């Protein structure tokens, strides 16, 4: 059967019937948690960000506020805002929360020390006690070359130093910071198992498809209710679910490095509104010329964005793979 594709437009991802979508997700959560996984509730790690807030609200609709536990898991690098917003959200929806500071666990893993040691090898002036650091992605969208990462150190007097990361240091920094998501995963499963609940994941479509998650970290969950939703659709749902406005207005950050780091500068490389539309265009085989015209971009730019999405999806296949079993 031939299906006719709608012409590409800026509104192509707009959800017209939020109630139906909401009911469908709620039904899926009930089905998977209660009937497939045979658990009696859900545990959600809440960070005060938009994705975990929407996931929490949907889970509460599905399982009832008495059967949902919100776990707030800051560490030494988290913004105090995160805990504040997470608590505000939990209060609004009247659910039980537990605060679990994961800093001591991370110190036990030498997470900070291993990360800072790699940063210091690239920027010897870095003082972990007084300076802040983050890594940022660097890519010229006009060039068909994969991105590289730079480490940025911001000294206490505001001076900024940035250097490209060699493979060894990049891998060590990522491996060390991944202790954070894996420690949080362990904590979520502790609470889920003691309550006979499921762990509800908070990843969105871009994070899942492009591999912006940690294998057996934030990717280690039982279900992913918003894993098929574009970010702009999650914002639409957030309004519908009455998520506090401060959370909706907050810039999505990784909350992983000591210096404030947006998800755009760390990984996605373009604003969500644009990323959503380009991703949709790529996945649904819209010609780059058509997408470029609507978005006011050059065709080459859209082509490179398509390639960038394809490359990220391909190179992160490993993250989505299950263990390989031999016959």
């Amino acid at each position, binding site marked *: 059967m031939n299906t006719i594709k709608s012409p590409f437009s800026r509104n192509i991802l707009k959800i017209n019937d939020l109630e139906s979508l909401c009911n469908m997700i709620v039904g899926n959560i009930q089905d998977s948690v209660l009937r497939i996984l045979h658990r009696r509730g859900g545990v959600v790690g809440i960070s005060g960000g938009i994705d975990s807030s929407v996931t929490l609200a949907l889970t509460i609709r599905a399982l009832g506020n008495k059967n949902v536990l919100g776990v707030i898991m800051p560490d030494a690098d988290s913004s105090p805002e995160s805990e504040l917003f997470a608590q505000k959200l939990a209060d609004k929806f009247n659910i039980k929360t537990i605060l679990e500071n994961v800093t001591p666990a991370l110190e036990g893993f030498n997470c900070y020390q291993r990360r800072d040691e790699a940063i210091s090898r690239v920027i010897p002036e870095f003082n972990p006690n007084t300076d802040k650091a983050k890594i940022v992605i*660097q890519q*010229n969208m006009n060039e068909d*070359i994969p991105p*590289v990462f730079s480490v940025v150190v911001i000294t206490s007097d505001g001076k900024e130093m940035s250097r490209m990361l060699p493979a060894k240091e990049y891998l060590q920094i990522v491996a060390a910071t991944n202790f954070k998501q894996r420690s949080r995963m362990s904590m979520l499963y502790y609470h889920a198992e003691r309550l006979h609940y499921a762990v509800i994941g908070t990843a969105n479509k871009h994070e899942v498809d492009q591999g912006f998650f940690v294998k057996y970290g934030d990717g280690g969950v039982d279900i992913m209710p918003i894993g098929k939703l574009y970010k702009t659709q999650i914002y639409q749902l957030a309004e519908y679910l009455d998520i506090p406005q401060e959370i909706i207005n907050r810039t999505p950050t990784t909350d992983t490095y000591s210096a404030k780091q947006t998800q755009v500068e760390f990984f996605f490389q373009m604003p969500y509104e644009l990323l959503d539309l380009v991703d949709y265009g790529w996945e649904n085989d819209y010609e780059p010329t058509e997408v470029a015209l609507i978005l006011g971009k050059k065709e080459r730019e859209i082509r490179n964005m398509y390639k960038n999405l394809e*490359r990220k999806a391909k*190179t992160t296949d490993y993250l989505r793979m299950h263990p390989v079993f031999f016959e």
Partner: protein
Amino acid sequence: MKTEIEILQGIRRYITTSASMNNNELDDNMLIFNLGLLDSMGLLFLIDFIKEEYNLEVMDSELVEENFESVKNIASFVYKKLQNEINS
């Protein structure tokens, strides 16, 4: 200093080994990133290789197609950079 041909052979050997390819499967003009022979980690390891093998530091501003899209372009980039080092 190595000749451009020697550098090209060195880069070829490195890429065929990294991408698990046979020598005859790799054309010097193939777009190595576009075709997915190397990914972003592959690029970082290649930069390491250039540093170890030719003692050259690649700057982020040099990460452009003209310098990195194929074996031929990488070899030419490395050769020119080595020549510049000698002349400076």
